C-alpha cells in the first residue's frame, strides 16, 4: 500500500516581525492559498491536513480546531503536531508519512507562528523541565551560547568566523522577497552588534517572525498527474536526544551526526560536499553554521572556517547553504523547519526565482530543536 511521495506545491507568507493586520487564522490562510495556487489545486483536492506551531507562543492550545477556518481542514482529517523547534520538520515528515502510507494521496502540511504575540523567552521557558532546568536556561540564547562556547574553545574558532556565516545568510536573504530581514550585513557590523550571551551577539542570532508556510505532498500517481516536476522525497531521518540541557554533549552534535549517517547510508551518499547540490540548514545562530556542517561530514572537526571563508557555502560555491537567507533572516518558529523543506523543494523544482541554485538534483533540508534534536529530509529531482 505504501507509495513514493513528491512535494507538488509550496506557499509562504511575506514574513515580518509583526503582522498586526491579520489574525493567526488569516495568516495560516495566506500560506494555504499560496500553496494551492502554486500547485494549481483547490482545497477540494486535499485529502488530509497536518498543522503545527508552538502552542505557548500564542496561548491557543487547540490550534487544530481553532485554525480550521484558515487551514481549509473543514470536514477533512486533521492532526496537530508540535515538537518545539523541530515542529516544522516534524510536520513535513508527518505529511510525507501520511502520503507514503497510501491512506491519503494529497496532504496539506501547515506550519505557522506569530512570535509577536508573546515574550519568546517567557514562552520557550515553558519547554524546560520545571524541577531542574527551568530556573537556568530560560529561552533559547544561553542554551545555544554554551554550545558555541564549548566549540570555539576546543578548536580555536573565532567570533569573526561565525560572523562570516551570518554575513552569508544575510547576503542570501536579500534575494528572497519573503524573508523578514533582506538587508546584507558585514563582518564588522556583526562584531560590533550588542553582546547578548557570550559569544552570541545580536547579529549572530535569528529574529522572531510572524509567518506561515504550507507544503503539499502527494503520492506518486497524483504527483505525476498534478505536477510537471515534483520534488521527490528520497529519505528522512530523525534523532532526539536527552531532555535536560545539562545532559547534552556540547562537543559534537550527536543527533545530526546520527541522522546524516542514516540518511547518507540509505541513499548511498559518500561525499556530501560533492553530491548534495544545496542545503537549507535550520541554523538558528551563526556558530551552528560552522560546527554543524562538520557534523554533516562536509569537513573535519574544526575545519569549517576554511569552507566558510572560501565561499564554498555561498551562492555560486560548491555547496550553497540557505539560498533563502535561512533562519537568521526569518524565524516564525513553527514554520521554520517547514520553510527549509519548502525552500529545498523549490530548488529541486527549479522554481526558486532570484535565489535559485542552478541544476539542483539533490536538496537537503534540516530541522533543529528541543535539547539539540535533529531532523532531515532529502529531496531529489527523480523519484528514489
Amino acid at each position, binding site marked *: 500500500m505504501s507509495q513514493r511521495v513528491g512535494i507538488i506545491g509550496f506557499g509562504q507568507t511575506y514574513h515580518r516581525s509583526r503582522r498586526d493586520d491579520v489574525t493567526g487564522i488569516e495568516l495560516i490562510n495566506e500560506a494555504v492559498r499560496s500553496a494551492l495556487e502554486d500547485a494549481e489545486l483547490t482545497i477540494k483536492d486535499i485529502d488530509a491536513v497536518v498543522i503545527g506551531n508552538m502552542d505557548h507562543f500564542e496561548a491557543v492550545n487547540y490550534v487544530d480546531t481553532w485554525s480550521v477556518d484558515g487551514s481549509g481542514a473543514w470536514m477533512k482529517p486533521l492532526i496537530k503536531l508540535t515538537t518545539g523547534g523541530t515542529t516544522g520538520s516534524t510536520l513535513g515528515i508527518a505529511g510525507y508519512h501520511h502520503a507514503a502510507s497510501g491512506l491519503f494521496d494529497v496532504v496539506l502540511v501547515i506550519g505557522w507562528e506569530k512570535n509577536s504575540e508573546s515574550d519568546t523567552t517567557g514562552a520557550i521557558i515553558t519547554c524546560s523541565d520545571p*524541577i531542574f532546568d527551568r*530556573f537556568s536556561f530560560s529561552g533559547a540564547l*544561553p542554551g545555544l551560547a554554551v554550545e558555541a562556547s*564549548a566549540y570555539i*574553545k576546543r578548536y580555536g574558532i573565532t567570533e569573526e568566523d561565525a560572523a562570516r556565516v551570518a554575513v552569508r545568510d544575510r547576503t542570501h536573504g536579500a534575494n528572497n522577497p519573503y524573508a523578514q530581514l533582506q538587508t546584507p550585513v558585514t563582518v564588522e557590523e556583526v562584531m560590533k552588534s*550588542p553582546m*547578548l550571551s*557570550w559569544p552570541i551577539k545580536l547579529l549572530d542570532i535569528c529574529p522572531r517572525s510572524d509567518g506561515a508556510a504550507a507544503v503539499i505532498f502527494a503520492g506518486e500517481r497524483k504527483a505525476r498527474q498534478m505536477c510537471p516536476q515534483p520534488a521527490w522525497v528520497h529519505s528522512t531521518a530523525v534523532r532526539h536526544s536527552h531532555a535536560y540541557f*545539562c545532559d547534552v554533549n*556540547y562537543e559534537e552534535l550527536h543527533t545530526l551526526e546520527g541522522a546524516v549517517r542514516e540518511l547518507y547510508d540509505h541513499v548511498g551518499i559518500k561525499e556530501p560536499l560533492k553530491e548534495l547540490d544545496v542545503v537549507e540548514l535550520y541554523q538558528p545562530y551563526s556558530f551552528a553554521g560552522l560546527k554543524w556542517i562538520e557534523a554533516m561530514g562536509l569537513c573535519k572537526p574544526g575545519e569549517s572556517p576554511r569552507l566558510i571563508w572560501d565561499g564554498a557555502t555561498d551562492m555560486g560555491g560548491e555547496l550553497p547553504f540557505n539560498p533563502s537567507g535561512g533562519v537568521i533572516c526569518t524565524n516564525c518558529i513553527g514554520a521554520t523547519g517547514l520553510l527549509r523543506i519548502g525552500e529545498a523543494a523549490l530548488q529541486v523544482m527549479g522554481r526558486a526565482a532570484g535565489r535559485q541554485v542552478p541544476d539542483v538534483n539533490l536538496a537537503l533540508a534540516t530541522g533543529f530543536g528541543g535539547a539539540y534534536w535533529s531532523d532531515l529530509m532529502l529531496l531529489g529531482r527523480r523519484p528514489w
Partner: protein
Amino acid sequence: MTTSPEEHIIYDGRIKMPYTWAAGKTSSYFLTQLRDYGRLWGTRCPDCAMVYMPPRKNCPRCVVTDTTWVELPPRGVLETFTVVHFSEPSLQPMEPPYIYGIVRLDGADTGLTHLVSEIEPNRLRSGMRMEAAFKKLEQRRGEITDLLYFRPEGGGRQ
C-alpha cells in the same frame, strides 16, 4: 488595549495559571538530601553504568528502572559556559552580566546546569575545577537553587 498606526486593534492579555509540579520520589530524595544536608546524589544505570546528575528514576538510554544511588562530591569540572548580557527581570532576577555553566561533578557522566559566580568572566575557561556553594541551611527549600552556584575550587574572589 493598544492600537497600531494603521488602527489595527491589539488586545493585551496575561494568562496566570497556577500549576503544581510533582518532583516524584526519586527527585524528592535528591532535593531533600540537598536541602537537609547539602549532599548531592546521582543515579547509576545497572546496564550501561552511566551516572546521571540530576538523578533519574529510569536510565534515559536503557529504559530500565533499577538504578542505584551514587553520592557525588560537590566538586567537578566546568564543561562549558556563557556570560548572559541581557535582562529578563520577570524570569531571571539576576542582574546581567551573569554566568551560566554546565559542571560535571566528579564521578558523574552528565553535567549540571547552574549559575557560576565568584569569578570574573574573562578568567573563565572550560575545564577549570569548580565547587558548589550552598545556601545557608535555614534558607534551603528543597529546590535545585538550594545549591547557590558553582565557584572556582578552593574559593573564588570575595
